[in-house]
């Protein structure tokens, strides 16, 4: 008994001490933090080129979207050294710039001859600049992304369905250009039997935990005339966030959820929406464009069976911006090497390969190349969508602003509490409080 105790004592002490010792750092290695999704896998592939050229090993820390913001904002706020490079969400720019999480890149860009003019303007504003519309750069645009839609082209092309649809609604069944049209299509397919399986109209974002439902509802709200604040008076939100138009838009999103989505869709975000489409459950799905390459390659629903269209219009025409820029974490001990990675990533040939592998390059040279629109079946829809982007608040207090909208919108749309007007009025109140706390009002 005593010998075992002594051995156990020794072993556990050794383990505890070894845990306390700092780990021996690898010779040349960088850790890049991003979300765990298809483009991340493509980046792993692409980065082999970097390792070949510089002999620096790349280690990756990928986290699923639902915990992505939580985990990495926590990491940045704890001044963690896990990430040398981070591909942070576009909305983190404000907070990360003002709280010193990211390294400011202006000097580096000037030194290496990297020009922001070479990148799509919307992506520069959206992913790199803080304050917005000023030449202060905190990231290199890495992944262009925007919310769009896919649809089952093969179903739309069925003659019997086309006939029935045209008789009922008076126009030819095709990719919708307005939300009214989209709703009609969704109603048409809801609970219809197609190819022996009951299908549903559409899959839309409804997720509560991180940012899902906000990223979905803004597409509709923007189109109905929702604005974040008075263009002439920043942070004045009364009458802009909760205008009668915005209220109508929110009601429309709820009616779409109630009428035309599959059962059990109360917590849907990117992977669930893609799943619903891949398993043949829905005629259309709302999703970020990054899902398009994977869906196009899918055996069951890809190839000729899939079509793509940008976010439909209504009174206005916008789409919610996604995408990220790549930044150097200011707490990293390897900033020199991290900057090398950014320099490599900005090269036109690397950007071209990035598009090929499934990433969405933001370099003008790539997206404006003559063959681009034809290079992939989804390229045109991507171009069209990037032309109409609008983003959520990128303020430093982005997190409470997002949380407030998640709560208010989900409560109304999914749980059915209160009215749309109450939800948006409550949102104005929440956002006003946040900006007051922040000293902006």
């Amino acid at each position, binding site marked *: 008994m005593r010998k075992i105790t002594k051995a156990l004592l020794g072993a556990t002490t050794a383990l505890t001490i070894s845990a306390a010792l700092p780990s021996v750092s690898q010779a040349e290695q960088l850790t890049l933090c991003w979300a765990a999704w298809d483009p991340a896998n493509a980046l792993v592939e692409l980065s082999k080129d970097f390792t070949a050229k510089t002999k620096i090993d790349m280690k990756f820390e990928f986290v699923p979207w639902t915990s992505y913001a*939580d985990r990495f*904002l*926590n990491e940045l*706020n704890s001044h963690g050294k896990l990430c040398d490079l981070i591909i942070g969400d576009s909305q983190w720019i404000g*907070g990360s710039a*003002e*709280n*010193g999480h990211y390294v400011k890149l202006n000097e580096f860009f000037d030194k290496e001859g990297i020009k922001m003019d070479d990148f799509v303007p919307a992506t520069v504003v959206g992913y790199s600049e803080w304050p917005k519309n000023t030449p202060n750069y905190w990231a290199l645009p890495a992944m262009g992304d925007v919310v769009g839609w896919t649809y089952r082209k093969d179903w739309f092309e069925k003659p019997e369905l086309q006939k029935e649809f045209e008789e009922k609604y008076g126009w030819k069944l095709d990719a919708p250009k307005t939300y009214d049209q989209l709703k009609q299509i969704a109603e048409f397919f809801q609970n219809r039997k197609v190819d022996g399986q009951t299908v549903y109209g559409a899959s839309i974002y409804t997720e*509560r*935990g991180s940012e899902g439902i906000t990223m979905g509802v803004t597409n509709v709200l923007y189109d109905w005339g929702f604005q974040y604040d008075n263009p002439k008076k920043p942070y004045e939100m009364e009458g802009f966030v909760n205008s009668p138009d915005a209220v109508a838009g929110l009601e429309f999103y709820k009616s779409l959820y109630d009428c035309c989505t599959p*059962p*059990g*869709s*109360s*917590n849907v975000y990117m992977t669930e929406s893609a799943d619903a489409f891949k398993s043949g459950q829905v005629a259309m799905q709302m999703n970020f464009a990054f899902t398009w390459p994977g869906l196009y390659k899918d055996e069951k629903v890809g190839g000729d069976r899939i079509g793509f269209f940008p976010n439909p219009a209504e009174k206005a025409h916008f789409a919610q911006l996604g995408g990220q820029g790549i930044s150097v974490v200011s707490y990293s001990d390897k900033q020199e090497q991290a900057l090398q990675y950014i320099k490599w990533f900005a090269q036109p040939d690397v950007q071209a390969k990035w598009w090929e592998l499934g990433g969405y390059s933001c370099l003008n040279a790539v997206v404006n190349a003559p063959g681009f629109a034809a290079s992939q079946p989804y390229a045109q829809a991507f171009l069209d969508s990037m032309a109409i982007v609008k983003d959520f608040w990128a303020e*430093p207090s982005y*997190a*409470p602003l997002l*949380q407030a909208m998640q*709560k208010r919108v*989900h*409560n109304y749309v*999914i*749980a*059915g*509490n209160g009215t749309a007007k109450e939800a948006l009025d409550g949102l104005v109140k929440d956002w006003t409080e946040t900006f007051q*706390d922040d000293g902006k009002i």
Partner: protein
Amino acid sequence: MTLSNSSIVDKAAEAAAKATPVPIAIRVRGLSDRAIAWLFIAPAITLLLAINIFPLLWAVYLSFTNFRANRPNAVVEGVGFRNYQRVLNDPDIWQAMQTTAHFVFWTILLQMLIGFALAYLIDRKFRGHAFWTTIVLIPMMLSPAVVGNFWRFLYEPQIGLFAYAVSFLSGIPTSQIQMLGNVSLAPWAIIIVDTWMWTPYVMLICLAGLRSIPDYIYEAAEVDRASAWRQFWSITVPMALPFIMLAVLFRGIENFKMFDMVTLLTGGGPGSVTEVASITLKREAFETWATGRSSAFAIVLFVAVFGLANIYVKALNRVKQR
């Protein structure tokens, strides 16, 4: 457990028989008793002070400021009781407390009923009861977070086993069994999982209670020709009551703090229907980064649990003295 050295036992018996029962402070060699007392107690107390008490005091301090953990360089001002005012007037926080209370009430009720029933049945000492008791214990060994995550799979309306089983037994189509998506069913979803996990715990405590009732009391009742029903209500339940109440106390405190399982099962949704107090606290503290306000909420929660537990323990002690 027998001592390794039997001569000590003999000597102990002798010494105990001879010596008067006065604690002997022997100072033969080595450290004095006082030194040993402090040496033994100090490490644990120091650790507790550093990691339990000091942070608690710091949280109290923070609750009177407008500090935000994601803006460590911003100016920190004292705001008096404003955080507490906001917390106590916030309808969402009261909603969360209500949700928590609903959760605590139903889980305790179900676990008590099922746990006690199980303990009673196991106490009949059927063949193999020791083996089956061990099997019944397994759910409480699991990580609540991992359980919550996995039950999400079981609850999926299209592909989950739970919906399929219920549909199979009752004929209701699975698309209507949306445990996680339906506003009225979601609270029951979390209650079911918690009951599945923790009924064994309540069962064990009740079993200890049942086993503590001496046989002779039952035998005396037999002699008095009391029926089995009467014996149950006048002997078994009253004597096991302190244990049942203890189980209620432990489970109540634990479920008041509930976070892991619910976060991974429903995330507080749909809407805020299953958002228990800890989830609201986590959102305030680690997503909104309103450190001052969330510290106030944390203190309020602590005081609430502490107060309720105190009242409950006094009642429990009174029951025990009967």
